[in-house]
């Protein structure tokens, strides 16, 4: 039950983009078409899982024991960046089809604040390893859902009579704001 609540909460109640406002850059940048949005969302889920899987042990077996927790940010950046690079090389060699579909997005995510944010949040929440992984998966799903919703709306907006001054990014920002308000309705439903 606790895990289910965590899962739901990470997807909807504390949605990474619409409630916590992390990762708004790819949220606006890659939400023009649903295809791209799904690709990006999948890549984010993948990288988030990998990032937590690597940074959690590092925190627990290196940073905390040696009392250098203040290096968390810089160490995480270093690790996540190297990791993404490695994953890209790995996928290209071993699973070319997956590389073909995610390859374009992987470099984009290297310094994504949502990925970084999740890595740090699991440490602040002092989640155990498995719970941390579940949390990152759920957060990634939340990102994917938000991205798919806004991209479908933006596809519709493209063919609607939008006043010239609002066309493109302005109306997308307004849409994002409205979506954010909608997600606020989940507040208070659970912890």
């Amino acid at each position, binding site marked *: 039950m606790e895990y289910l609540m965590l899962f739901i909460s990470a997807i909807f109640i504390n949605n990474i983009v619409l409630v916590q406002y992390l990762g708004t850059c790819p949220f606006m940048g890659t939400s023009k078409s649903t295809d791209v949005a799904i690709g990006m969302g999948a890549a984010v889920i993948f990288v988030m899982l990998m990032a937590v899987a690597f940074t959690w042990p590092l925190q627990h077996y290196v940073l905390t024991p040696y009392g250098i927790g203040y290096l968390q940010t810089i160490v995480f950046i270093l690790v996540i960046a*190297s990791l993404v690079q*490695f994953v890209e*090389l790995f996928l290209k*060699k071993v699973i070319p089809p997956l590389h073909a579909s995610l390859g374009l997005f992987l470099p984009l995510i290297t310094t994504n604040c949502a990925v970084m944010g999740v890595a740090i949040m699991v440490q602040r929440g002092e989640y155990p390893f498995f719970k941390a992984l579940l949390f990152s998966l759920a957060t990634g799903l939340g990102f994917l859902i938000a991205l798919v919703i806004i991209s479908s709306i933006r596809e519709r907006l*493209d*063919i*609607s009579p939008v006043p010239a001054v609002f066309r493109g990014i302005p109306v997308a920002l307004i849409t994002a704001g409205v979506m954010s308000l909608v997600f606020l309705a989940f507040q208070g439903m659970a912890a």
Partner: protein
Amino acid sequence: MVASSILVLFLLGLTAAAILAVASRLLHVAEDPRVARVEACLPGANCGGCGYPGCSAAAAAVVDGTAPAEVCIVGNIETSQRIAAIMGAEVHFKEPRVATNICSGGDRANLIFDYKGVEDCRAEALLYGGEKSCGIGCIGLGTCVKVCPFNALRLSEAGVPVVDWNACRSCGKCAEACPTGAIRISSVTSVLLHLNQTDDCLAPCMQKCPAQINVRRYIQQIKQKDLRGALLTIKEHNPLPLIAGRICPAPCENICRRKIVDEGVAIHTLQRFVADWEMQSGIRVPLYCNPPSGHKVAIIGGGPTGLSCAYFLRRVGHEPTIFERREHIGGMMRGVIPEYRLPKKVVDWEVQTILNLGVETRTGVAFGRDVTLKDLEREGFEAVLIATGAWKVPPLGIENDDAEGVVDAISFLERFGREGPDMSGVRVVVVGGSNTAIDVARSARRQNALVTVLVPAIQRKMTANKDEVERALEIGADLRFLTAPLALHVENGAVSGVTYCDLAYDDPGKAAGEPKPVSGTKAFIEADLVVAASDRVVDHSLFTDADGNPLFKRDKKTGGVSANPTTLQTDIPNVFVGGEVHTGRNILIQAVADGRRAARAIHFHVTRGAVPEPDNQQVQVIPETILKNMHVTYTIPRVQVPLTPLEERRISFKEEVACSISYDVARKEASRCLRCGLTCYDADAGAEYTQDDDVRPIDRPGSE
């Protein structure tokens, strides 16, 4: 503390770097380095116009060998050259292409409902093909503008797309997105060789013109003071505007929608104006030609068909050679048609314009006598166009038709063109109602001969141009309508007179069919010279093989060489025919049109080996484009072409009878054009001339 944190970071960084370094070695994917280099040459627009999903896929295909060096449609010739340098390949010529919008309707079109919905042409087209009544026109919601990756399109005020030809990269996204086909990708070749289609935006004049000239566009260009553009528009489909502007009977003017309101636009006068403007300027407007393709084509006959075909073949990149029997290129236009209708210097200028494009000529070479199909094949010509015309005047077929003093019209006119003999007091009888007959009558009359023409029809049914018949009457030729010769009388071996009878139609009101002789009518007229000008037919004796067997089948209807009517291909696959040798006696513009049609067929024959049938070919006037009612606001009188005074016509033989019009007059005439589309038109055409006295608003809209 500081030391340990530095140490930890150092170690972490070192580990990560080491892992990545090892991984990049271990996980290295062998990639042809040329792929990256080729990709670097590509523009990186990822537009997909080449048919590959993006620039890197295209680069991979080039390195693979599946795509040529000129794969990129966006890049220019330099792009291809750089790629070719990497691949060690050769760059082939790639014809530039561009998006063009065929719709001129915009907000002029009638609406069948009011569309409120998704702002996308494709969505609107799902509802009865869109709100506009015209099924082929631009819907106007700008889907093409949205899909264009190069910002090359914008919507005009009238709501049709305008292409910025400098920005367009011909990726084809707009054409793919357009649900009505109003926007298309075209190239020089496709424009020059395009045959009218029923899904083109064709004003009635453009449907009626055998050469399919874009009349609407060139008249608008005159109106907008773009004479150079107008000339280039005409020359897309007619390489002989100077000549056509003088002797074309202008079928286009007869079907002009403006006739419902007042009179048809003086289309061919405007054509002549534009062509004269070029000639008077003394500088030839440069015409774009593709670089030589290496395909050699032989053209037999230097008349309008041959010249037209050579012109189009040269412009699309082939290498035509004209073989001409006579000493001059120009066929009947030079030396047969009299000077006062079509001066030699005009023909020579026009011919020179075509020859300057790089068309070779061999004069004094007769087909069948000096050169045969075999010789041409041996010389490396891949295709042959037979365009020898119809020069044979059939004998009158009556008693004594071979007596002294009986000549055929062609030899009469040829001799006349050379010598211009004084014919004072000579009694000339001309038999026939064609332009040739009228030319003979007018020429002889100008030299003070007494001319009688026996015309086998009533005036409005004559095949001669209406204006020319008027000129002949003005100068005092005696035209006897509905008559035919019965016999020639001979005295001392020379002709002395003609007996003729009256003809009558079965139904005089309609005047349809062939008129028949009326029995009992008989009259006599004295004559010193009888000129046969009843018809001109094809001389088939030219087309025989070594054993004397005919090379081609004879078309029963026209009397010419039979061929596929669309491709003009004969039974011998690499031999094409065009012009009068195929159609029988015809008008100049038909010859020009045939030349273009033959050029199209030859182009496909030499490049692809087969000639495709055109899609949706427009062969008849599209019925729904003939409007019954129109709501035009202003009536403007049609331009009157000034004529050389009658007295001067008797003194001079060199002056053209029909004179030029001035620029202002031409522009005012151009403003009469309703810029018709398939069904739409400009109701308020000519509004800018409302200050003029002769421009009046029409009280009651519509027509009687």
